[in-house]
């Protein structure tokens, strides 16, 4: 890739004394599906609104195809967008809604009609063109909104939590649709969500937003296996944190001391280490091994079982360390360690130090 398709360069947005976005930098490749993932107030939507032209950044620049977008008003940016709320024009039929961007571009009628048909086919709503938005379900309305946003072949499609108003089953159905449409049209998509599962399911890459900065950008597996910050570790996948002491730290690895165990060597380290200082050891429930007795030759933490929950294909065991810190483990259904396990049992949770992480 010689030159990135879309560059977000040092975008900053201040509202009076509050800084919503702190100098965000991001390159997006053509045809990429990139998700802004973060809790509400993390600056992800503001960044998207700056791209749409609804907000002006305090400073920074947005470059699309080598040209700055900032001086271009929204209606000339030629960007598609699907909103969180239903924004179909209620007085127009489905067909007229999809035709709207083409009509304001003064395309010939035959071309508009052909495009509307293509778009209805793309979102699988053939035969719905004469319906009014109010006669359609939320999911159908968002599919029409998607068709409207893609009707003018925008190089970039913005999606601001488009599925948050839908129930879980419908959401998954439309996630599949969005994936299919992305593959079919090869449009570049910037997608905003606070739902990690949605982000993992849809995206090529995920930018995790926290407090106005991007904590980490990477593919789902990268973020899961190698979270750069404690926030990312908490946001992607499940995790528990045990307080520990830093013994030594070098080259991104640390030896740590956990209460009740010996020194654990060679754990991947993130953050600014202070030798002798406090740190947090992150352990994922699905990476822990439960044994009745101390496993010989591997690292393990002694714990007391506090609760056992059946979750269908796996079983969630909540435990507590001697110091009272919570540590969960997830075992597949039918695991031999489960059969005689009871609340109050003392067990050991073993892990591979290389798969754990220490955050300072």
């Amino acid at each position: 890739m010689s030159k990135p398709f879309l560059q977000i360069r040092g975008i900053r947005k201040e509202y009076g004394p509050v800084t919503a976005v702190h100098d965000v930098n991001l390159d997006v490749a053509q045809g990429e599906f990139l998700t802004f993932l973060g809790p509400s107030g993390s600056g992800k939507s503001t960044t998207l609104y700056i791209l749409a032209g609804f907000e002006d950044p305090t400073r920074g620049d947005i470059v699309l195809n080598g040209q700055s977008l900032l001086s271009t008003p929204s209606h000339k940016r030629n960007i598609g967008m699907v909103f969180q709320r239903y924004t179909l024009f209620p007085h127009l039929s489905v067909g007229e809604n999809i035709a709207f961007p083409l009509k304001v571009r003064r395309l010939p009628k035959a071309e508009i009609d052909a495009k509307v048909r293509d778009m209805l086919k793309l979102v699988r709503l053939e035969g719905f063109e004469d319906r009014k938005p109010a006669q359609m379900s939320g999911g159908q309305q968002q599919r029409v909104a998607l068709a409207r946003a893609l009707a003018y072949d925008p190089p970039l499609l913005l999606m601001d939590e488009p599925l948050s108003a839908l129930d879980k089953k419908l959401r998954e159905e439309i996630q599949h649709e969005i994936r299919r449409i992305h593959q079919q049209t090869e449009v570049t998509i910037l997608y905003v969500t606070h739902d990690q599962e949605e982000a993992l399911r849809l995206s090529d890459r995920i930018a995790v937003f926290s407090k106005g900065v991007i904590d980490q950008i990477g593919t789902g597996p990268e973020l899961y296996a190698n979270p750069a910050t404690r926030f990312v570790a908490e946001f992607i996948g499940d995790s528990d944190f045990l307080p520990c002491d830093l013994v030594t730290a070098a080259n991104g690895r640390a030896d740590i001391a956990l209460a009740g165990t010996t020194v654990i060597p060679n754990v991947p380290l993130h953050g600014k280490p202070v030798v002798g200082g406090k740190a947090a050891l992150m352990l994922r429930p699905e990476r822990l091994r439960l044994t009745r007795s101390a496993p010989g030759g591997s690292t393990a933490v002694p714990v007391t079982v506090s609760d056992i929950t059946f979750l269908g294909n796996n079983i969630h065991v909540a435990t507590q360390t001697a110091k009272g810190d919570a540590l969960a483990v997830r075992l597949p259904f039918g695991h031999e360690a489960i059969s005689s396990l009871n609340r109050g049992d003392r067990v050991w949770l073993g892990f591979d130090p290389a798969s754990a992480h220490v955050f300072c």
Partner: protein
Amino acid sequence: MLSRTDAKAAGSKIPAGRLTLTDFDLTLPALGLLVLFFVVPVAILLARSVSEPVPGFGNYAELLGSSTYLRIFANTFLVSGLVTFVSLLIGFPVAWALAVMPSRFASVVFAILLLSMWTNLLARTYAWMVLLQRTGVINKVLIGLGLIDKPLPLVNNLTGVTIGMTYIMLPFIILPLYGVIRKIDPAILQAAALCGANRWQSLVRVLLPLAMPGMAAGALMVFVMSLGYFVTPALLGGTANMMLAELIAQFVQSLVNWGMGGAAALVLLVVTLALYAVQLRFFGTDRMGGR
């Protein structure tokens, strides 16, 4: 009436006697009042219009057959139409501004609007007379600025009536329009912008159609109110453009011709009811007042 609901309420703990919209009983006092003070006088007037000076429809024939009276009808419609049009033209931007401006500014504008509505009608009309007359502030300022040489005829003519009545009618168009515009999701206009619509296209293709129910309700209300307006046309209008209400007043007060006065009043009432029927037919009662 009361005993029935009491009995129901006593029979179960569920409020079975709770009021419903179909409880006709409750409207009886108001209905009685309406019959006594509105239906009966109108009926008497109707009776006099077909019995004085001689029984028959002579009054109606004269009213609808004379070019003098027809000109007054035409003028009434002209003034009402003009006032409605100008009110819409001014009212729409104001309602839009009210809907999008920060609420603390909006509440100031609302206060001004309501204050003007609560001020005595005569006082407001005389104020316009002072402003618009030959030696009034407006003419003096325009002459002072060198824009005109001699005072413009702003009062005792169509201009004066239109200005004065538009001022009085504006709140009746702004309030329902505000209600409708407030309910339009700003995201819909953002979507229109990203679809490529410039401000003008967004206004014509999205905002105006969505505001149409409020505009129609407000416009019809203003038009109907203007048709029967008396005070402002009488004070700010000229003899050349008399309105229907003035004609009725003249029949009854100066000419003591109850027959003709009653006939003119009935014509006005029929036109008003017809327009109200149009409003109900197309917009329904629930759209009244922009709801």
